[in-house]
């Protein structure tokens, strides 16, 4: 809203700028805003502050699970060190492989989820009989616990007694059963299929909410103007739901960049489906190497942050607010 904050830095003599920045009302409003923010920030600091700082700290130590107390500071050795050949995270081809896998997975699955989610949301937004039930039905994939749904899909994707192969073969699309989760070429796609299936409702629900909040009267104008629904969608609906869609995509992308359980349950942690999170977990949990694992987590954090910032920068107009 424009109350008391409208004087922007674009123009106007210096005095005015200071004046506007310093007004009591504005200050009071800002104070109220911080007051409103505080509970959230306190809770977040409480739950996230220590764990995150700790992770970052450990990434510079040689801590291991069995001797966490006696961790030594080793600088960036976990990241990169020369000791008759390069060692460390940045020199590990598996890490780079997992970065690439993660990005591939994220781009493809979030892309598909977005498109599909918008389509589903449009359908759910239409008025028809039984809409309630369909809405509930569409949410089911998201509602099933990931560990269960991943197992369920593992079951359905099973090469021998999986129903998917059975169906595809019944339809004559494939002649021999495919080893969805074992075949290095297919396993990533299997994971993507499952993730898209699972996360589409998330996008759909958010977009649905955005669709419901649209101003209704300019749609009437579009109808009278005789604009085709497709054009209305791209020129009116899409720009108007863009902020919500962007947020949905951000959170989906964050989840996808940190993807873990689906892959963990569905495929072996072979290099073809190794993601950054799995890599980090492997180091942290399976290999007991808290230092190295924390380094991987921190790097993962940095990569995500980088992407997020780029993404937000590109989409800043959609999100409105700070120009």
């Amino acid at each position, binding site marked *: 809203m424009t109350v008391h904050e409208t004087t922007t830095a674009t123009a106007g003599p210096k005095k005015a700028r200071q004046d506007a920045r310093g007004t009591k009302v504005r200050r009071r409003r800002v104070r109220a805003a911080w007051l409103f923010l505080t509970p959230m920030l306190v809770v977040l600091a409480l739950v996230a502050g220590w764990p995150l700082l700790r992770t970052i700290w450990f990434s510079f130590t040689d801590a291991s699970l069995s001797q966490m107390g006696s961790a030594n500071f080793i600088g960036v050795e976990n990241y990169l060190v020369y000791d008759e050949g390069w060692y460390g995270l940045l020199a590990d081809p598996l890490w780079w492989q997992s970065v690439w896998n993660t990005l591939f997975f994220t781009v493809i699955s979030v892309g598909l989820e977005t498109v599909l989610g918008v389509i589903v949301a449009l359908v759910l937004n239409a008025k028809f009989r039984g809409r309630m039930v369909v809405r509930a039905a569409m949410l089911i994939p998201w509602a099933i616990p990931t560990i269960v749904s991943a197992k369920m899909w593992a079951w359905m994707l099973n090469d021998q007694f999986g129903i998917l192969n059975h169906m595809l073969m019944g339809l004559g699309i494939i002649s021999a059963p495919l080893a969805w989760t074992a075949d290095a070429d297919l396993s990533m796609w299997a994971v993507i299929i499952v993730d898209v299936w699972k996360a589409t409702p998330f996008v759909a629900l958010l977009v649905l909410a955005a669709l419901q909040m649209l101003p209704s009267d*300019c749609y009437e104008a*579009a*109808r*009278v*103007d*005789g*604009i085709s629904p497709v*054009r209305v969608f791209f020129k*009116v609906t899409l720009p108007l739901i863009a902020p919500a869609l962007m947020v949905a995509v951000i959170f989906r992308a964050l989840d996808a960049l940190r993807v873990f359980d689906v892959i963990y349950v569905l495929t072996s942690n072979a290099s073809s489906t190794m993601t950054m999170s799995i890599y980090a977990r492997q180091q942290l949990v399976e290999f007991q190497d808290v230092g190295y694992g924390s380094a991987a987590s921190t790097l993962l954090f940095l990569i995500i942050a980088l992407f997020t910032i780029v993404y937000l920068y590109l989409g800043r107009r959609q999100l409105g607010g700070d120009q």
Partner: protein
Amino acid sequence: MASVQLERVSKRFGSTHVIDEVSLSIDHGEFVVFVGPSGCGKSTLLRLIAGLESISDGDLMIGGKRVNELSPQERGVGMVFQSYALYPHMSVYENMAFGLKLGKASSESVAERVNETARILQLEALLERKPKALSGGQRQRVAMGRAIAREPDILLFDEPLSNLDASLRVQMRNEIARLHGRLGSTMVYVTHDQVEAMTLADKIVVLNKGHIEQVGSPRTLYERPASKFVASFIGSPSMNFLEGTCRSTDARETRVELKALGEVVLPYGVDSNAVGSPITLGIRPEHLTPVQATGSDAFEVINVEYLGNESCVYVDSDAEAFLTCRVEADTPIARNDTVSLRIDTAQAHLFDEHGQALARAQDSAL
């Protein structure tokens, strides 16, 4: 051909009857103005014609074809919404160009048309702004620009000038008239502005509580209102009404005994059935002249309103409401004066108990 026929069209919202068996015929190229009290159903009627609301009952024909079930785009209408309904994320230019691009117009001709419309509406300087950064009147002009830039067969205007200042309103009114002349399209126009209604309309439709009170040319409505409602609604300040009784009537004159002003003789005859029954005499402010009080029939002046070009004198008539007289701006009459009232009897209207105008004997067609 863009004629519009409504045949016993009704609209209900739940149990509220908003439009009640309205029948109306609008010729191709005609300019029809809807007037009526706030909430009487004008916008609803426009929305029914546009196809934005479903018709509960009755038929709507456009160009002779029943269109009840057609979508707005199939009806070939354009509309200026009372609530503007601008696209919030588009600039003024885009708002106006959006509907145009559809017609596969080349982008040059789109630009040309939009710029021309913007010029007419004096929006040239604002083309890059978003609706949020516009004043109320500017938004309204954008809403109008959007509809007229498309030049559709049927144009529906819902109070398109209500938020403009008087001089801009006059200009816009002229532009609309010119547009009507140029396009020859059918226009349906809702307004609360007396002057707009009178000057633009080929035909004025007076609506009241969802039904049509009277349809006619501006002059007919003003000079021969079919009912007390129309008489009071058209013309501002409103017509004065005086209760009384019809004493006698013949072909040439009618005697009426008024409670407040005593007996007056009107120079025309009315339906003889009215004799002896209660009657209401209507007289417009400009036909009621206050003069220096002459003895018995003296009334007190409650207020004198100066309007610049004229003044209004409010007189306490002992009747239900004050009587309003329209006088020159620099009238010597002041508050608390006592005045007599002179009625221009030729301009007086008579209404029966039910508010219907009494038919004049050998009334010449207007």
